[in-house]
């Protein structure tokens, strides 16, 4: 009985949080369209979330592209389809791995930083101080992060797609002795614009999820340093789970 009770309480609490997070996100979206617009804050966040994430996104994409080339070569060789390695790398990177891996890496890097920064501001009463100075924290802190993340994720994904394909190609040509001309031809032969667009669209949604979830966790922090730690962990875990779920839903419905 106790288990049923606890399980029920967990579900109710999860639904409660989901409801709060939804209200929070809608409230934020309402503030996005209200002037004054804080361009400078948006640019700063674009640098923090986007530009500063380039190294880790690049490393992830490079190794994924390279490993993908080796793995698909091993599998395809068994039925004589080695020539399709470039195609598989390109399709996998643009449609799926570019957006999802970039989303997860940015959630870990920038989402955690957002939650920690806003969480610290919450527990040191800086968020309350903004209210007392008649400045709405949603407008000042959250809107710039949401805009920046939603805009920067697709740009990071374009980069990840290119680097991933290049990583696959360098292994394909350099290690697996594929003919460079044929490899590149195969890479782009079956690649459609829709593959790229679908990945970019998904990544915008992932950017929105990362910023909304992380800011929500940040501003709802309580309990001092320990609370900030928990909020940071929750920001990464919840963003990652939501990215994976949304990815499945979007991929199966839209594309």
């Amino acid at each position, binding site marked *: 009985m106790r288990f049923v009770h606890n399980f029920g309480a967990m579900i109710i609490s999860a639904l409660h949080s989901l409801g709060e997070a939804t209200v929070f996100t809608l409230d934020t979206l309402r503030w996005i369209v209200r002037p004054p617009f804080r361009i400078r804050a948006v640019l700063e966040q674009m640098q923090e979330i986007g530009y500063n994430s380039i190294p880790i996104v690049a490393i992830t994409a490079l190794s994924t592209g390279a490993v993908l080339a080796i793995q698909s070569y091993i599998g395809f060789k068994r039925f004589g389809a080695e020539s399709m390695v470039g195609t598989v790398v390109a399709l996998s990177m643009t449609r799926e791995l570019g957006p999802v891996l970039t989303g997860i890496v940015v959630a870990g890097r920038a989402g955690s930083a957002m939650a920690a920064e806003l969480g610290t501001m919450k527990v040191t009463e*800086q968020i309350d101080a903004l209210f*007392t*100075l008649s400045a709405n924290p949603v407008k000042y802190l959250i809107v710039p992060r949401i805009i920046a993340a939603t805009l920067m994720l697709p740009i990071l994904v374009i980069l990840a797609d290119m680097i991933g394909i290049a990583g696959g190609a360098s292994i394909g040509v350099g290690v697996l002795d594929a003919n460079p001309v044929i490899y590149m031809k195969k890479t782009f032969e079956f690649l459609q614009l829709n593959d790229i667009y679908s990945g970019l669209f998904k990544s915008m949604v992932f950017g929105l999820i990362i910023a909304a979830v992380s800011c929500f966790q940040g501003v709802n922090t309580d309990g001092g340093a320990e609370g900030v730690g928990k909020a940071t962990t929750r920001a990464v875990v919840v963003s990652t789970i939501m990215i994976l779920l949304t990815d499945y839903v979007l991929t199966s419905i839209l594309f």
Partner: protein
Amino acid sequence: MGKDYIIKVDNVHKAFGDKSVLTGANLSVERGESMVVIGGSGTGKSVLIKHMIGLMMPDKGKVVVDGKEVGKLNEEELNSLRRKFGMLFQGAALFDSLTIGENVGFALKEHTNLSKRDREKIVIDKLNMVGLKNVENLKPMELSGGMKKRAGLARAIAMDPEIILYDEPTTGLDPLMCDQINDLIVSMQSKIGATAVTITHDMVSASKIADRVAMLYNGKFISTGKPAEVFNDTNPVVANFCYIGKIVYETEAIYSRPIKG
């Protein structure tokens, strides 16, 4: 009853989950006075002042500031009401991504059309008022605890508020610094004539800065009046809590007499 009350807290109840914090708090603050709310840790003092500035809304009862019921205001009205307030937070709550100058000038930049030069002049002026010089370009991290509180106070008074809320202004400071902060609070009263509401459990501070004192206990006010009245209250809870305050208050009365005379 012709008194001019700038803040009226009327039968306010507030609970967090199943934990009741305020259970029918009543308090009236006169315009221009220095009201000190005392009470033990966790009795809801912070919750009380957060209701005054609309950071929290009562579950039951109402808070009226300058004739307006805080709970009934929309976002715009609440924002303009908040501009009547300056609040000094316990940990100063300076924005650590901004310099001290940007912190103090924050509201000026957001809510006025003053030029950069005029704003800088006001910022320096307010910093001087709290006894700080040449700190405009420092970050909050580079300041000591007492200096942070002063900078926080400068930010609170930047827009010449009618009401200043002090959240435990002396907590965590050494005795000398406590004294300076107390003096500063008293001098703010005379310099800008603002109403002050201070919450504290530091009875030395209370006895030095209060025009009136109100004691919060179990979510209600159990004693309100002039310091001498509250400190001599026969209610054992009040008497125990105010024991030190009473000594300080009476000692001050004795020792400051020759200087004043």
